[in-house]
C-alpha cells in the first residue's frame, strides 16, 4: 500500500500540487486521472522520488520515503517497477537484455534463475519470439509490453504506469490495460496508472483519483464515476468524448 499525506509541490511561484492525501491499496489498480497540466505526472514523480516535494509524506507500506537517506531510498526503488509513457527502453539493448537489466543490476540471482525469470516474463507479455529484437524494431504496443516485462521482472511490490495507452490503437490499449490488471492481481502488488483514457478508467479503475488544478478533487470507483455529480469531473469525462461515444 502507498499512502500520501499532505503533499505540496511548487515550481517557483506556481503551486502544482496542493495538499494531496490518498491511499493506494495493495492488489488493486488505482488510476490517477486529470487533464493535461493538472499535476498527475508531477505527483507520480514525487511518489517515486524523481522530484522532491516541498512538504508531505509518502509511505510505502508504512516506510516514509521522503524521510529516507539515499541508501534506504535505493532499497525502496528496487521494489518499484515503472512503465514510462514512451516505454523508455534502452536503445542499445535487445528486448531480452532490457528485461534482464534490472535483474543484473538489482538482484543476486544466478544466471539460470535470471534466464528463467526473463523467459517467464517475456512469455507473460507474449513476446518470447521477439527477445533478440532491438526497441527500434518494435511496434508501439510491443514496446509497452517490453516496458511492462522490464518493470515486473525483478518482482516489484509497486508498479507505476505513466499513460500506458498513449499512442496506441483502442484494441492494443485494451490488451495493455488487461495485462496491467492481471499482473496486479496475480502478484498482489500496488499499481498506480496515470491516464486520461476513460476506457481504461471504466475497464480497470478499481480506485480512481481525479486531480484538478493540483488538488485531489474526487475519489471513487469505476462504478461511482458514472453516477457522479461533480461538475469538474463531469466536464473532464464529457471532454474525453466517452459519454458521447457511449450514447452514440
Amino acid at each position, binding site marked *: 500500500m502507498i499512502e500520501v499525506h499532505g503533499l505540496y509541490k511548487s515550481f517557483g511561484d506556481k503551486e502544482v500540487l496542493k495538499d494531496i492525501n490518498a491511499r493506494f491499496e495493495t492488489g488493486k489498480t488505482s488510476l490517477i486521472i486529470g487533464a493535461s497540466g493538472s499535476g498527475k505526472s508531477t505527483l507520480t514523480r514525487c511518489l517515486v522520488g524523481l522530484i522532491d516535494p516541498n512538504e508531505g509524506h509518502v509511505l510505502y507500506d508504512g516506510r516514509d520515503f521522503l524521510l529516507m537517506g539515499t541508501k534506504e531510498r535505493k532499497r525502496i526503488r528496487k521494489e518499484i517497477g515503472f512503465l514510462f509513457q*514512451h516505454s*523508455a527502453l*534502452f536503445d542499445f539493448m535487445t528486448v531480452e537484455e532490457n528485461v534482464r537489466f534490472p535483474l543484473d543490476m538489482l538482484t543476486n540471482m544466478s544466471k539460470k534463475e535470471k534466464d528463467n525469470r526473463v523467459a517467464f516474463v517475456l512469455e507473460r507479455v507474449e513476446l518470447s519470439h521477439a527477445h533478440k529484437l532491438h526497441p527500434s524494431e518494435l511496434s508501439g504496443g510491443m514496446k509497452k509490453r517490453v516496458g511492462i516485462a522490464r518493470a515486473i521482472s525483478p518482482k516489484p511490490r509497486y508498479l507505476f504506469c505513466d499513460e500506458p495507452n498513449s499512442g496506441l490503437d483502442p484494441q492494443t490499449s485494451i490488451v495493455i490495460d488487461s495485462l496491467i490488471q492481471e499482473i496486479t492481481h496475480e502478484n498482489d502488488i500496488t499499481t498506480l496508472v496515470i491516464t486520461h483514457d476513460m476506457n481504461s478508467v471504466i475497464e480497470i479503475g478499481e480506485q480512481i483519483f481525479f486531480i484538478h488544478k493540483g488538488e485531489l478533487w474526487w475519489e471513487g470507483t469505476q462504478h461511482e464515476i458514472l453516477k457522479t455529480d461533480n461538475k469538474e469531473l463531469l466536464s473532464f469525462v464529457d471532454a474525453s468524448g466517452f459519454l458521447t461515444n457511449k450514447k452514440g
Partner: protein
Amino acid sequence: MAAFLFHLGRYMILMWRVFSRPEKLSIYRKRLFDEMVSLGIDSLGIIMVISVFMGAVITIQTAANIDSAFIPTYTIGFTTRQSTILEFSPTIMALILAGKIGSNIASEIGLMRVTEQIDALEIMGVNSRAFLILPKVVAAVLINPFLVVISMFVSIGGGYLIAMFSDIVTIADYVYGIQLDFRFYHVVYALSKSAVFAFILTSVPAYQGYYASGSALEVGKASTRGVVQSSIIILVANYIITQLFLI
C-alpha cells in the same frame, strides 16, 4: 560569471557521482570493454588517415621553409618527429576525437535524457551518472594514449612516404633526422597529456548530454556545446600542461 560557476559546480558534482562506487563491477567491466571498442577501435580508421596526411604535410612544409644551405636536410625528419610527438598527435587527435566521440557521447546521453531512459535507470535505483559516464571516461583515458602512439608512428610514416616518393629529402637523411636527439620524456609528456585530453573530451560532452532537456533540437545544441567547450578546454589544458612540464 555566475553561469560559469554554476556549470563548474554542477560538473564537479556530476564527476563526484560518476566516480562513486559502482553497483555491479561485472556489468561495468563489460561496458568498459564495449566502450573501448566503440571509442578506440572504431576511431582507428580516421586517426590513421589524418595522421598519414599530417606527417606528409609537416615534412613538405618543413622542407619548403628551409631556405638556408647551412641547415642540414635531416632537420626535416627531426622536425617532423618533434612536431608529431609533442603537439600534432596528442593535441590534433584530441581535437578530432572531441568532434567525433564528443558529439556522439553528448547526443547519446542527451537522447537518453529526453526519452526518459535516464529516469528509468534512476527509478530502478541505478546510479545513472556512473553507469553511463564512468565506462566512457575510463575507456577513453585508457585507449587514447594507444591511439596517440599509433598516430605518432603513422604520421612519421607519412613523412617517410614523402621521402620515398619525392626528392625533397633522402630516406637516409629523414631516418637519421627522426632518430636524432630522441628524448623518451617527450613521449611520456605527450601520452600524459593525451590521457588528460581523453578525460576532457568524454566528460565535458557527457555533462552537456546528461543535463540536456526538452526536445531532439536541444540534444543537438547540447552536442554542439559539448564539442566546442571540450575543444576549448583541451587547448587551455594543453597550454597549462606544456608550461608546467616542458619549460
